[in-house]
């Protein structure tokens, strides 16, 4: 131990002369962003990365950070590759991050066991392991505003609405086209449960990661099976391909519903004007008319401090990135309020997340009125809150909001979550018991 410190001391001493950056690290909050601007998922990764970055940059430029403390924002390129993601995590871990956003289900799965040991909260916003919403077993993982099972139940609420009751689905076929990995497979148990309950048939169309841009085989089967509705769990290059293939077989686009990760502008543009009618869930506002986005324009984009292309500003996935950063910023602010400290640590921010509340009034205060459903139900035992989303429809050139907030079937999702969490814990014995105490305010 002594020699190690000695060696590190010598190494540090050699460093100090050349790198005067270390001094400022004390007075700032380190927020690393694991992003991917390269690789097969870059199409979806770019707008998200830009949105996350720009909102935090804006806080730095406009307010001087959060609570008077500047944020140190740093990107690490993962390429959506799990091995690189773990490398990024190890790299940022040394600099004491207050939160890590893996932005990939695969990477999240690898970080879940590590987070508790390293005392770093992981924010997997509406992706990752649904079961990690059970805060009693996963005190360090957060996945608000909704899980994939919530998403599926919202899609079924919408379908039920259009069909005049879910009972009308009896005898019909529902197709499910999905990314063949953890992300796409997770909703299947609930889907099969729905099929049993309402008497419809499920057809599964898996799309392997290597075949994302070549889905003709799957869509040939769709043409044969003629499902009444198509549900899609896609990401990256898979989405525009699916939309294009759907238009090619003349599938009725207003019966084609995607999860929130399938709703980028570039995804729908893949099908051109024929894609008109394509539906996806969404939980963040669209467009640039929000005061906070105007501030981003003024303080970040106009000053050339962003990589965002002008025409992509305010698009759906960009705003999704902003939403993600709002959660981070609010959790940090919360942590400052709870602890009274200015420079907060990972543990403080975990407490900040556990008592995260963003009411409609708060959304307005943030300059984002009606941008998202009020976040209120996040607590120590529920790290998700099961918040509402809405349905948006592609009108040929842009997304249009076509429904009110749809709340998930929480009573059906929660037991599944509890069971899945129990299952995860039993398979990963010995799993650490929760020792983190719960704040009264949450």
């Amino acid at each position, binding site marked *: 131990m002594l020699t*190690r410190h000695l060696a590190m001391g010598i190494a540090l001493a050699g460093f100090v002369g050349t790198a005067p*950056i270390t001094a400022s690290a004390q007075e700032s909050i380190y927020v690393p962003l694991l992003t991917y*601007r390269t690789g097969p998922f870059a199409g979806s990764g770019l707008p998200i990365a830009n949105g996350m970055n720009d909102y935090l940059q804006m806080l730095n430029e406009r307010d001087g950070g959060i609570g008077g403390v500047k944020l140190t924002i740093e990107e690490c*390129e993962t390429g959506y590759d799990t091995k690189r993601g773990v490398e990024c995590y190890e790299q940022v871990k040394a600099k004491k991050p207050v939160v890590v956003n893996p932005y990939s289900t695969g990477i999240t799965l*690898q970080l879940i066991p590590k987070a508790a040991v390293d005392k770093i909260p992981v924010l997997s916003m509406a992706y990752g392991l649904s079961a990690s919403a059970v805060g009693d077993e996963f005190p360090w993982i957060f996945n608000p505003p909704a899980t994939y099972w919530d998403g599926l139940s919202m899609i079924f609420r919408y379908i039920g609405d259009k069909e005049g009751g879910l009972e009308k689905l009896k005898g019909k076929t529902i197709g499910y086209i999905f990314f063949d990995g953890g992300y796409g*497979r997770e909703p299947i148990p609930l889907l099969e449960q729905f099929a049993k309950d309402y008497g419809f048939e499920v057809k599964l169309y*898996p799309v392997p990661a*290597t075949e994302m841009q070549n889905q003709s085989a799957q869509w040939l089967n769709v043409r044969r099976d003629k499902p009444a509705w198509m549900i899609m769990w896609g990401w990256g290059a898979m989405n525009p391909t699916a939309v294009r293939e759907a238009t090619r077989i003349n599938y009725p686009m207003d019966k084609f519903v995607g999860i929130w990760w399938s709703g980028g502008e570039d995804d729908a543009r893949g099908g051109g004007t024929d894609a008109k009618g394509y539906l996806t869930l969404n939980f963040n506002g669209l467009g640039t008319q929000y005061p906070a986005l105007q501030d981003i324009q003024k303080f970040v984009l106009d000053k050339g401090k962003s990589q965002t292309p002008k025409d992509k500003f305010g698009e759906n996935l960009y705003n999704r990135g902003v939403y993600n950063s709002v959660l981070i910023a609010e959790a940090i602010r919360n942590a400052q309020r709870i602890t009274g400290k200015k420079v907060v640590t990972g543990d403080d921010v975990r407490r900040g997340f556990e008592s995260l509340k963003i009411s409609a009034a708060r959304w307005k205060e943030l300059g984002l009125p009606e941008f998202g459903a009020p976040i209120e139900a996040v607590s120590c035992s529920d790290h998700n809150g099961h918040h509402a989303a809405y349905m948006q429809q592609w009108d040929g050139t842009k997304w249009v909001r076509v429904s009110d907030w749809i709340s998930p079937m929480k009573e059906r999702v929660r037991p599944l979550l509890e069971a899945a969490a129990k299952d995860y814990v039993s398979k990963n014995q010995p799993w650490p018991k929760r020792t983190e105490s719960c704040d009264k305010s949450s």
Partner: protein
Amino acid sequence: MFYRETGQYKTDYAADMALFPIRQDRIGIALILIIAFVVIPLTMSSFTLSAVMIPVLIFSLAAIGLNLLTGYTGLISLGTAGFMGVGAYACYKFTTWFPGVNIIVLILASGFVAAAVGAVFGLPSLRIKGFYLTVATLAAQFFLSWCFVRLPWLVNYNISNAIEVPTRTILDIPVTGPNATPVTRYLVVLSIVVFMTWIASNLVRGRIGRSWMAVRDMDIAAELIGIRLYRTKLLAFAVSSYYCGVAGALMVFLWLGAAEADSFNINQSFIILFMVIIGGLGSLIGSFFGAIFIWGLPILLRSAPEFFGVSIAAATVEHIQYMVVGALIIFFLIVEPHGLARLWQIAKQKLRMWPFPY
């Protein structure tokens, strides 16, 4: 001059057949082992240990596995990642069945499952050669990837279709799982890799290795001098898959901590193949060079701008790194088609003559 053997007499067969007959080599290897076992764990940061050293060692082991097959026996395989996956999934099943058994025993045992699978996919090598065999191993890769995704039994019906590594301890020290320190994991990986490299080096020097090389150089001639082709080729497949399987189990259990089927995709196979080609076909030390070059260099390149205080966007660094690594690969293959191991050999040769050139 530095590398002169003059005065080192061999007086018995044992000395002549030693693994490192030259004194300088023995000193060199002892130095390397001391650095690897003592200096590195004491001085390196946990990031360097867990994101650079551990993967380099694991990839070296996989590259050795592929090298035994491709470099020594002349059978090109594109199924490496598939066999690594077999090892990883087998180890996961073993440790859920026998949670009390020492994890290192299970990791080494899971290699046998990979060896059996490898031998099955080696069967076509009895009939076909060259490109045709390559395609057959490619089929193995696709078939195994398909299995990893479609057989929920392999992941114990885990809903997210991934392996999650539980904590396993040896003498109450956690070796796998999130509580295992990078130093522990590094030392375990290092010990296994050193041990298996030692076995491999003895294997290729002995009867089995000679028969592999005979098959590589000309199979008909090998058959004529009495080497049974089928057995030799199948054994090469089995041993190679054993090494890959152990590497796969190490990758998931001691490095990543969790794995999806996608971790064992065709890209991974290509990366290992590149390591073998860059490092040098038919050379164990080349496998290490290749792994260091392909895995270590990009990390170095990525951290270079920050080290020099230049701020470049993460994605730009990524693109630059692709270009530089790509260019370097081409450069090395033009300068020395036999890989880095050959360069190493030339360097040793030059040192032997120094300061008098030919």
